């Protein structure tokens, strides 16, 4: 990495870490729902902007490491989950942006990954915590809810939950693209 590239990685990695530490703390304190998705989207936007101005391989992974370290510093109690979450997001986006480059397609694929990833992480964590029966039990509940209220209500609620994640992810990617375009103009 060149000195400039190291500087970009340090600055934007620190920004991501500060965003996770401050915004994350506020959201957890207020027990706001979907905080994981919001934080993943904010992280993705920062990564995409940084990769746009500094298209250096490995920089995204390094940014994730810096951000995860700052997050651990700030968090008093639960540490492993946020650390692993940030690192995984960094690894996934590093792969995407290395394969697709930070062009529009790369941005959109990143948005899709960030839509799916929090869902997968939630399912994985809940399965580890509550056992392999967790997913079947939730699906049974959705079916039971639909049978009770009709109109496939349970599935609609699940569908809405999944859709919100996609809105965050794709919306975040489009927003990052718009900001990147504006930065290039100014």
């Amino acid at each position, binding site marked *: 990495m060149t000195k400039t590239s190291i500087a970009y990685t340090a600055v934007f*990695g620190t920004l991501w870490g500060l965003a996770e530490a401050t915004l994350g703390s506020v959201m957890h304190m207020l027990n706001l729902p979907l905080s994981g998705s919001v934080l993943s989207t904010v992280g993705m936007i920062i990564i995409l902007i940084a990769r746009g101005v500094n298209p250096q391989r490995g920089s995204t992974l390094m940014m994730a490491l810096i951000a995860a370290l700052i997050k651990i510093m700030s968090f008093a109690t639960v540490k492993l989950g946020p650390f692993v979450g940030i690192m995984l997001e960094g690894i996934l986006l590093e792969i995407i942006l290395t394969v697709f480059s930070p062009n529009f397609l790369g941005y959109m694929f990143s948005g899709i990954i960030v839509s799916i990833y929090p869902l997968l992480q939630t399912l994985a964590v809940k399965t580890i915590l509550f056992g392999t029966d967790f997913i079947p039990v939730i699906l049974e509940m959705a079916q039971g809810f639909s049978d009770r209220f009709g109109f496939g209500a349970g599935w609609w609620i699940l569908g809405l939950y999944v859709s919100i994640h996609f809105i965050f992810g794709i919306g975040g990617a489009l927003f990052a693209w718009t900001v990147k375009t504006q930065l290039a103009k100014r």
Partner: protein
Amino acid sequence: MNLKSIFLSLRIWVILLIFISIFLLKMSPVGITAFIFILSWLFNRNTVRPLKRIPFWVTIGILVIAVPIFSGIQDKTFLTITYSSVQLSKTMLMAFRGISVFLLFQIMTVDLNSETVTALFKKLGFRNFNSVYDLSNKTMPHLRSILSARVTGLRVNWKANHQVINVFDFIVLLLRDLIQLAESLGTPASGGIKITPLNFIQLRKNITPPSLTVITGESGAGKSQWLSQLINEIKNTNKNVDGVISEKIIDQDDQWHHSLIRIVTKESRQLNTMNDLETPIQVGKFFFYPEVIEWGCDQITESVNAEYLIVDEIGLLEYDGAGFLPALKKIESEFQGHLIFTLRNRLINPFDSFLEDRLPIIAGWDRKMIYL
């Protein structure tokens, strides 16, 4: 960590005990979960604190309340609500397992901190990790100050008009500042962190005026561009900025002149020329228009009430007792804001004595030099 220390580690024994207890959970879910809870609390009280978090109990609530009500064969009733006893047993066990596994992970990671992880990654020899990590620590205060300044600007703009575009502009400007910061950090000749116009304004807030700031650097270092950005940033904070700036105008390939511009009115006059002039005022290859210098002095005098007063630039004319010096002498006892000069690098050495001799009041103000 050798085998002996592993066996002697209390944490390892507690983890082992909890692990075995989780496997035996079916025998007595309530009792074993209570045992794990007490064991965790005794090991480290911080391990049980996260159990207060509501999102954790939302999932347990869904499992224990919603799942038995909406799935399985409804064979029992409680307060007229039918539920499945089979599903309830299943989900209760899942809930106790969730609490136990959560506490297990808490025991494993409660002492996880950035120092141990940093040491681990340094040991692993991640390429460039040390450089990036060290630079990240150095940039943290600058980032905070940039964030703080931009948030203040957003609040001001939001108060003026409640438009979403303000938020977008805030984000774009913030990112532009960070790009500038990264660029300045990455420049080999910088030798450290350059101060951006925004950082400068933040720092000046902590200084009681009147104060003097001198922007200096070699020709072509970017003083004019820095000043231009500073003026915009000051205006964004709704502060009053005035004075005179000089702009280089290229006439031909090897011919140029400077225009003197009043910041507030944007009125402009040609300050000098490379062509021969019947004028007593010459510095190097430039011939200065005396009436424009006098006009410049008037503009500086009129700017005495500004919060930020810029004089671009101070040079040999002022050192010789002419140029903008008469105007500065007039205002130095009256001016109560932040005075900003630009000065060529090669004129730094005599600057202190110039101030003490010619502008003694300004010489006593808080002073900062910014090297570009």
